[in-house]
């Protein structure tokens, strides 16, 4: 297929439909409205496609739960405050082992915050967000091409592990336009035995998160934990950029990683050997890959559009084997590569 120029939010919608998403429910919230509108416009043109504008983000997540139980590929989307509302349902999907995609186009917070790009929902996304002992696969795309590829990949992961998957981007990526090529989606693999479609003449099934017996509940928790370990072992994604000769490595994801790449070009023009480690899966975090890098690099700088959230995962991954600095711009501030380059230069000089 040819390259097309599309905005981030629309790309997510198109990738979802191409990969077989047939049920979308959502509630308008800036800066992700284009995605909801894209689904309204385009779901009606595909066979079996359903779009529902729900009365709330809570209703939206529970609608996709209903559709997911029937075996449909499902998606909902929102932005930060709306994702808080969806947490009840995300926890329920994890408990009931239901696949589905939740898109969070982050904005400034806490509270109503603002509608500008920010990365303050990393904790909420990667730590579970809702109640109980569970994990959510979290993918942090940095380009429009990745929005397309990783949305498709997200649907496959959700089916493979029967678990909710979050696409964590921000208002910048959602609104920007870039050329994109939609790849051919993989054929779906999802067993009918997990679907609830009426018992027919057979035995009835039920899907539930309620397990009153402590020993049974414990076993369910361990079963989920074993699944999360398999995901951790097999599904981490990351990118390394100019780390081969680097004296300092910036760790950043999403929009922050794009800014970091711009800063690195400037820094290298001035003779500073700086590279980038970009986690693409935020959970599971590419912990071992980052730790391996500390064999040759001792100076890391975490850059986030928050007051320091992924910073904790970087510290846990490096386990004290290297120095970890931090630069954060929360609240919807998006620094230019030139500004970031100045900050990085100071950290670079500090080392030796």
């Amino acid at each position, binding site marked *: 297929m040819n390259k097309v120029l599309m905005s981030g939010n629309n790309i997510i919608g198109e990738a979802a439909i191409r990969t077989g998403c047939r049920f979308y429910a959502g509630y308008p919230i800036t800066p992700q409205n284009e995605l909801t509108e894209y689904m309204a416009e385009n779901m009606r043109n595909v066979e079996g496609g359903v779009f529902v504008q729900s009365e709330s983000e809570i*209703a939206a997540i529970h*609608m996709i739960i209903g559709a997911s139980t029937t075996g449909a590929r499902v998606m909902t989307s929102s932005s930060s405050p709306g994702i808080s509302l969806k947490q009840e349902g995300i926890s329920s999907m994890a408990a009931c082992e239901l696949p589905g995609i939740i898109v969070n186009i982050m904005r400034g917070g806490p509270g109503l915050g603002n509608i500008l790009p920010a990365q303050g929902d990393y904790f909420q996304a990667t730590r579970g967000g809702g109640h109980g002992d569970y994990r959510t696969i979290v993918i942090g795309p940095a380009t429009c091409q990745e929005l397309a590829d990783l949305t498709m990949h997200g649907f496959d992961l959700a089916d493979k592990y029967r678990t909710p998957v979050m696409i964590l981007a921000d208002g910048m990526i959602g609104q920007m336009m870039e050329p994109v090529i939609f790849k051919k989606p993989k054929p779906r693999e999802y067993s009918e035995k997990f679907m609830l479609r009426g018992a027919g003449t057979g035995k009835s099934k039920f899907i539930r998160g309620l397990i009153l017996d402590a020993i049974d509940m414990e076993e369910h928790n361990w079963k989920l934990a074993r699944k999360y370990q398999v995901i951790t072992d097999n599904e981490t994604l990351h990118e390394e950029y100019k780390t081969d000769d680097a004296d300092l490595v910036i760790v950043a994801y999403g929009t922050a990683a794009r800014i970091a790449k711009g800063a690195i070009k400037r820094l290298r023009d001035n003779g500073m050997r700086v590279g980038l480690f970009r986690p693409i899966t935020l959970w599971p975090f590419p912990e071992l890959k980052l730790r391996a890098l500390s064999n040759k690099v001792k100076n890391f700088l975490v850059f986030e559009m928050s007051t320091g959230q992924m910073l904790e995962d970087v510290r846990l991954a490096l386990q004290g084997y290297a120095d970890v600095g931090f630069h954060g711009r929360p609240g919807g501030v998006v620094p230019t590569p030139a500004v970031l380059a100045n900050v990085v230069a100071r950290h670079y000089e500090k080392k030796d």
Partner: protein
Amino acid sequence: MAKKVFSRTKSLKEAVFHYCPGCGHSIAHRLVAEVIDELDIRGITIGVPPAGCAVLAFNYIDVDMIEAQHGRGPATATGIKRTLPDRIVFSYQGDGDLAAIGFAESFHAANRGENITVVFINNAVYGMTGGQMAPTTMVDQKTTTTPGGRNKTLDGYPVKVCEIFSQLKGTTYIERCTVNSPAAVNKAKKAIKKAFQCQIDGQGFSLVEILSPCPTNWKMTSIDSCKWIDTVMSKEFPLGVFKDETAVTKKPAEAAS
């Protein structure tokens, strides 16, 4: 040989109800199961039990079920029905589930005219959590969170679901019944059957409210509970058909074409 006049209906599992003696849930479960069998829809029915006393409904009613989070039944049912329009989808909800925490989900599913059926159990109290005030608790009724009686100035008034939902253009069939006497039980069954038939015929949103005794949390005997429904509860929540457009409603399929 003696003639068999009553037996367990096929879609009611051979399990012992966990409900308290005198509770209306077990009757309502049986009625739903009997209706499912009489309409021969067991194989195509998907039920959505709530959080609350009926949370274990999947242990009793022998159809495919997905348990909803508290109050979200109609949203979950919407997702199922929209994806599988030829299945029969019902949500079973209590008064806290429908009229408090899940009022928005229920109201808007009704307003969209989702072609689903809601069985709404109103026992004027929170049963599972131990007898706190429900949105349908009577004024002056004592509960564990209204120890002096529900105070209308502080706690507001009983929420009348049938009256409110029948105002919505999206709804087709709304009836309030009770199960406090054999005659009332028969009437409730007819209402439930009509509600499911409404859905089978593609006529849109149907809801049956059942005033249901809760002797444990009303702190009454079973017989007094049944009397209380007649003398007090049904004065606030009058029984009857609030809306029946099954005769005039076009099937959505026809309306759309």
